[in-house]
């Protein structure tokens, strides 16, 4: 598997959650990462106030973006776009 920078990994997770929220299995598939690693990243994001964790009626754990998370996603998209333009990350490392 190709090396992905941390910024791209975080952005992939934020994109996977989206406006609707997502289950860890969906995030894991979208970000192409194993569940435990995704969980690790999500815990840090919850700690930083980017993501919240909710339990729905059927007892499933759903992750949602906070306002700060949405704003961060925006800034990270700009940053990744810039880094791709500068040639500091591979052009195929992030596809929105």
């Amino acid at each position, binding site marked *: 598997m190709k090396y992905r920078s*941390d910024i791209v990994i975080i952005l992939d997770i934020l994109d996977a959650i989206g406006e609707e929220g997502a289950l860890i299995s969906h995030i894991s598939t979208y970000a192409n990462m194993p569940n435990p690693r995704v969980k690790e990243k999500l815990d840090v994001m919850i700690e930083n106030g980017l993501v919240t964790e909710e339990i729905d009626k059927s007892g499933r754990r759903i992750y949602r973006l906070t306002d700060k998370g949405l704003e961060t996603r925006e800034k990270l998209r700009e940053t990744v776009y810039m880094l791709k333009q*500068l040639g500091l990350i591979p*052009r195929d490392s992030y596809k929105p």
Partner: protein
Amino acid sequence: MVEINIWIITTSLGAGAILLYVQANVFSLFLKSYRVTKAQQLKNITYAFILFISSTLSMMAINTYLSIFSSGLSIEELLLYRELSTTIYNIIFALGLFFLLISSTKSFTDTILYTPLILMPEMVYLQIPVEKGLLELFSIYGRIASDAVIIIEASFLLALYLTYSEKEVIMGKLWNIGIILIMFSRAIDLLPMKPYSEMFMIFMDMVAFILLYLMKKEAEIFTREER
């Protein structure tokens, strides 16, 4: 001669102010992203911009001092301090480029990027003539060494751009132009064209960072359109 120096000091201050604004603006984007992600790559880019901003501030601080106290200085002192300000600017700028380079994820850079740092002191020490004063030595040979290092670093950045960036997007090409301008200005500075080459160098850096600023603006529009 005094008039030329005063003119260069004043225009350097003006160009420095624009450079500072543009660098701070681009830096803010990387800093915001670093605060939430704590990514190593962004950490290095943040360091790079702190160094770019420091280089501009140091150049502006010395030039401000010179513009205030120029009447009390001899022509030799004025010339030396002005050259010194450009040398310090150039050395910190070279370090900034180094951090920008190591922020790349490309593996080959890990091994060859140490070359400029090794080269810099060697180039200085190899050329030290003992009869000159330390400050004079620093301003002349430190400058030659830092010019050469910047040319090497910029050519690595150019290679990264050619390998990685999106060829079909026009804005990426602006960075390409910016790097070439930085390289070209350092090559001119190696020729005996001082003090004009100093002015040219600062103006070319200003243009290169304005191009980077335009790229940031384009990134804002691009992500907004995507929503």
